[in-house]
C-alpha cells in the first residue's frame, strides 16, 4: 500500500527541503558567484548577489600569476596515478578474496581496514625522512605511492563488496566447461566487474584529489597539487575575495561534477559495506 500524501504536505516538504539544501550549498554558490565579480564588488556592502557586472578577469589573473595549470596537472597525475596503481594492485587481491575465500579472508580484510585507521601524524616523520633519503620529497611519484597506500584498503574493500555480488555459479559453470583461469577473468568476470571498478575508481580519485595532509606536508613547489595551491592563498592573497573564489572554484569544480555521479558509491566505500 502506497502512502497517500496530500499536496499541501508535499509542498511543505519541498519548500523546507529546498530551503535547507540551498542553505547548505550556499557557501559553494557564494564562492562561484564571487569569482565572477571584481575585487571591489566582492567586498561591497551590502553584498551583491546577482546584480553585478560579470567578469572572467579573476580566472585570467589567477591562471597567469600562479601557474594554475601546473597545480592542476599535479593533482590529475597524483590522484589519477595513485588510483590507477591502487586498482591494478587491488583487483587481483579482491578477486581472490571474493571467489576463492579461505578461513583467513575475513581477518585479512579487517587487518587491511585497520591500516587505514593508522593516524597519518603518527608516521609523519618516518615518511618524511624516507622521502628525503630516497629523494622523493616534492615529487609526484612519491605522492602517488603514498596516496595509493592510504587508499588501497578502501579500494580492496569496495572491489571486494562488488565482486561478492557476482554470482559464483556463473564461474562454476565456466569452469565446468573447461574455461581456464585467464578466460574466466577476461570473458566472464571483467564485463560483470566493470561497473564496480568504475565506481571504485571514481570515489578514490575524489578522495585522493582532496587529500590534504600528505599533499601539504610532502610537497613544496614542483609537485604541489591544488590543495597546496589553495593553502598558499592563506595570506595575504586570501583577502582578495574574487581571486580566492576563482582559484577555489577551479580547484573544486571538476570534483563537484564527478562527486555527483558517485553519491551511491560514497556510502558503500566509506562504511566498508556496513551500510547498504
Amino acid at each position, binding site marked *: 500500500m502506497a502512502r497517500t500524501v496530500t499536496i499541501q504536505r508535499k509542498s511543505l516538504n519541498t519548500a523546507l527541503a529546498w530551503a535547507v539544501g540551498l542553505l547548505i550549498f550556499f557557501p559553494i554558490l557564494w564562492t562561484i558567484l564571487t569569482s565572477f565579480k571584481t575585487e571591489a564588488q566582492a567586498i561591497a556592502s551590502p553584498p551583491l548577489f546577482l546584480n553585478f557586472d560579470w567578469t572572467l578577469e579573476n580566472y585570467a589573473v589567477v591562471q597567469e600569476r600562479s601557474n594554475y595549470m601546473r597545480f592542476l596537472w599535479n593533482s590529475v597525475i597524483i590522484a589519477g596515478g595513485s588510483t590507477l596503481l591502487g586498482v591494478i594492485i587491488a583487483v587481483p587481491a579482491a578477486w581472490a578474496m571474493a571467489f576463492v575465500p579461505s578461513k583467513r579472508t575475513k581477518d585479512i580484510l579487517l587487518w587491511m581496514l*585497520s591500516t587505514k585507521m593508522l593516524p597519518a601524524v603518527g608516521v609523519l616523520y618516518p615518511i618524511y625522512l624516507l622521502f628525503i633519503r630516497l629523494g622523493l620529497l616534492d615529487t609526484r611519484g612519491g605522492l602517488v605511492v603514498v596516496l595509493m597506500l592510504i587508499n588501497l584498503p578502501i579500494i580492496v574493500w569496495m572491489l571486494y563488496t562488488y565482486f561478492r555480488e557476482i554470482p559464483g555459479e556463473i564461474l562454476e559453470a565456466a569452469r565446468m566447461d573447461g574455461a581456464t583461469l585467464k578466460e574466466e577473468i577476461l570473458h566472464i568476470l571483467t564485463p560483470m566487474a566493470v561497473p564496480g571498478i568504475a565506481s571504485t575508481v571514481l570515489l578514490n580519485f575524489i578522495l585522493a584529489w582532496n587529500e590534504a595532509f600528505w599533499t601539504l606536508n610532502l610537497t613544496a613547489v614542483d609537485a604541489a597539487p591544488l590543495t597546496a595551491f589553495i593553502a598558499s592563498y592563506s595570506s595575504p592573497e586570501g583577502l582578495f575575495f574574487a581571486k580566492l573564489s576563482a582559484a577555489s572554484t577551479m580547484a573544486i569544480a571538476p570534483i563537484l561534477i564527478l562527486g555527483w555521479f558517485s553519491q551511491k558509491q560514497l556510502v558503500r566505500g566509506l562504511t566498508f559495506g556496513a551500510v547498504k
Partner: protein
Amino acid sequence: MATQHSRSVARLMMAPAVVLLLGWMLVPLTMTLYFSFKKYLPLRGGDLGWVGFDNYIRFVSSSSFWPAVQATLVIVIGVLAITVILGILLAMLLDQPMWGQGVVRILVIAPFFVMPTVSALVWKNMFMDPVNGLLAHLWRFFGAEPVSWLSEASMTSIVMIVSWQWLPFATLILLTAIQSLDSEQLEAAEMDGAPPLKRFYHIILPHLSRAITIVILIQTIFLLSIFAEIFVTTGGAFGTRTLTYLIFQRVLESQNVGLGSAGGVYAIILANIVAVFLMRIVGKNLDA
C-alpha cells in the same frame, strides 16, 4: 570447490596488496617507535642517544598537552553532536515525498566534495572575516557588532567549518539507512494513532542505531586527524591546537622528532581504541 591450485593462485594474487600494506604499516611504525625512545633533534645535534620513556613523560607533562586534548575533544564531540543530530533530521526530511528530491540531495552532499583547504579558506575569509565577511555584513544588518570569528570564537568557528564538511556524510549514510526501513511498520503505527514523536523513538531511532554507530566511529577516526582546516585558518593559535596539530608542530616545525614520535604513538593508540569498535561492527557484517 576451490582446488589446491586455485588456492595458491589466489594467494599469489593477494600477495602484492598484502605485502605493500604490511610494509606501509610496519616500516614507519617501527621507525616512530624507535625515535620515540630517543632524544633526536635533526637540526640541533641529531641523534643524542636513548632516553627510555622520557619523551612519553615529557609529551604528556608539557603545558600544551592538556589544552590540546581539550581542543581535540571539543572538536570531535562538537562536530559529532551537530552532524548526527542535524543528519538525522535532514535524512528524515529528505526521505519525505517532495518535488526535486534528486537536486536537493545533490545540494546537501556537495560540501563533502570540496577539498578541505578550500572550505577552510572560503569560510575563514569570505564568511568569517570580521570586516568584509558575509557574517559580518549579516551581524551589522541586525545592528550587532561583527565577531572576529577565528580569534574570539576560534573553537566555535572550527567546529562550524568541520561540521559543514561532515554533515553531508552523516546525512547520506543515515538517509540510506532510513530508506531501508519497512514503511508498512511505520504506517501501521501511524494508523494505530502513535504520535510522531513516539514513532520516532520506537521505530525510526532503533532502526538507525547501527548506522548512527558507524557514522560516529568513522567520523571520530577522521576528526581525530583533521589537519588542513587548522593549518590554513588559525595555524594552531587561539586554543585550536589539537593533538594532531601539536604532534605536527613538534615534528616538523620545532624538529623535536623524539618528542613528536612519542605523541604519534599516543595518537596511534587512541585511534586504535576507536578502530576496534568499528572493526567489530564491520566484521559482524561480513559474516552475514
